[in-house]
């Protein structure tokens, strides 16, 4: 009995620092706290561990931070790496896409898209005038058949601002012609059949560069 108690006491004494930093499981924590309530020595141990933690934090916080050189070195190293060739399926990122579809933010996006659709349809019914380049359209909107040209599949950031996206698309002469599809993909028309391939690539790159708004952008047929 005494040995058992002694073993338990030693085990708890070793766990005090882990208790202090919250690194015990809920079951371990409950047992530890029960032991602490009846063992004054263990309570002293915990008090000592708290002092140790405070001073360890102070010592670490007094240490220097890395200079920007470390990040520059990392990015230079990444640039020197062979280019990645992701598979078709990994580029589609269906798993993450599905997660995004059902995330609260994405649902918010869907609501915004639905609102835009209603607004756009109302606008069409009342104004019946051509849409400026870059304006949002949706798949379910009645519209003229999509002409030829250069296209891209795009996924927008869940917290992207609609006005900012509209501005970006207008700036690049692009417009949404389809979507959202499964995975949150939108089909974007980068330009007409007369758009030079180099300019299509530049517009696609411009979309990719807008990282706060665009999560994914790849050429599409």
């Amino acid at each position, binding site marked *: 009995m005494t040995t058992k108690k002694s073993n338990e006491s030693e085990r708890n004494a*070793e766990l005090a620092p882990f208790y202090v930093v919250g690194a015990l499981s809920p079951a371990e924590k409950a047992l530890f706290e029960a032991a602490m309530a009846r063992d004054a020595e263990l309570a002293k141990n915990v008090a000592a561990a708290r002092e140790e*933690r405070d001073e360890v934090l102070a010592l670490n916080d007094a240490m220097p931070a890395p200079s920007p050189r470390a990040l520059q070195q990392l990015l230079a190293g990444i640039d020197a790496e062979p280019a*990645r060739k992701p598979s078709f399926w990994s580029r589609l990122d269906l798993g993450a896409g599905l997660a995004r579809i059902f995330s609260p933010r994405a649902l918010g996006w869907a609501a915004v898209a639905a609102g835009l659709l209603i607004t756009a349809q109302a606008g069409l019914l009342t104004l019946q005038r051509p849409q400026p380049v870059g304006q949002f359209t949706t798949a379910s909107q009645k519209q003229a058949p999509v002409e030829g040209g250069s296209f891209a599949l795009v996924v927008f950031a869940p917290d992207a601002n609609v006005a900012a996206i509209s501005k970006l698309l207008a700036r690049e002469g692009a417009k949404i012609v389809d979507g959202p599809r499964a995975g949150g993909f939108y089909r974007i028309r980068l330009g007409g059949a007369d758009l030079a391939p180099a300019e299509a690539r530049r517009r696609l790159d411009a979309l990719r560069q807008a990282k706060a708004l665009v999560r994914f952008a790849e050429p599409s047929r």
Partner: protein
Amino acid sequence: MREDKPDAQDDPLLIERIARGDRLAMQVLFARHRLRVFRFILRHIRNEAAAEDVLAEVFLDVWRQAGRFEGRSSVSTWLLSIARFKALSLARSRTEAQLDEQYAAGLPDEADDPEVEAAKRDKSALLRLCLEKLSVEHREIVDLVYYHEKSVEEVAQIVGIPAATVKTRLFYARQKLSEIFKRAGVDRGWP
């Protein structure tokens, strides 16, 4: 919650994006963990420029191996494991003479009695001094638990020792602190 405590909930998502070649995700992960990983490395190699080189190498390894990360540990535990391996490899390849002299000169010596005498008037200062006197092995485990807030199992994974050894090593490190206190004639109240 401490200000520099990484918000690790979406770390695995960042790793997925890094595996697909997303540089922005890499920069987010770097910004989130650079400070803690850097300080962990600096403890081992005691030279800021060399520690920055190792830090960049750690994250370059993450860039290369992100696709193989299986999520069996937290991302921060994985980072510290890589950092430890690289830091120790570098430390082994360097001689004592290559230690940064300024940093080494700042380390307290066992015989710095005047410093201990001065610290006796301030228990916190004495404790900080005693912590700096711990061996590298003891100090490493103390930092992993108190600063990096790692569990027994996580420390075992980072250091590559059994979980039971983690507990006893930390316990001995704490006893060592008490011994240094006693030698300085100060009662810290435990054990």
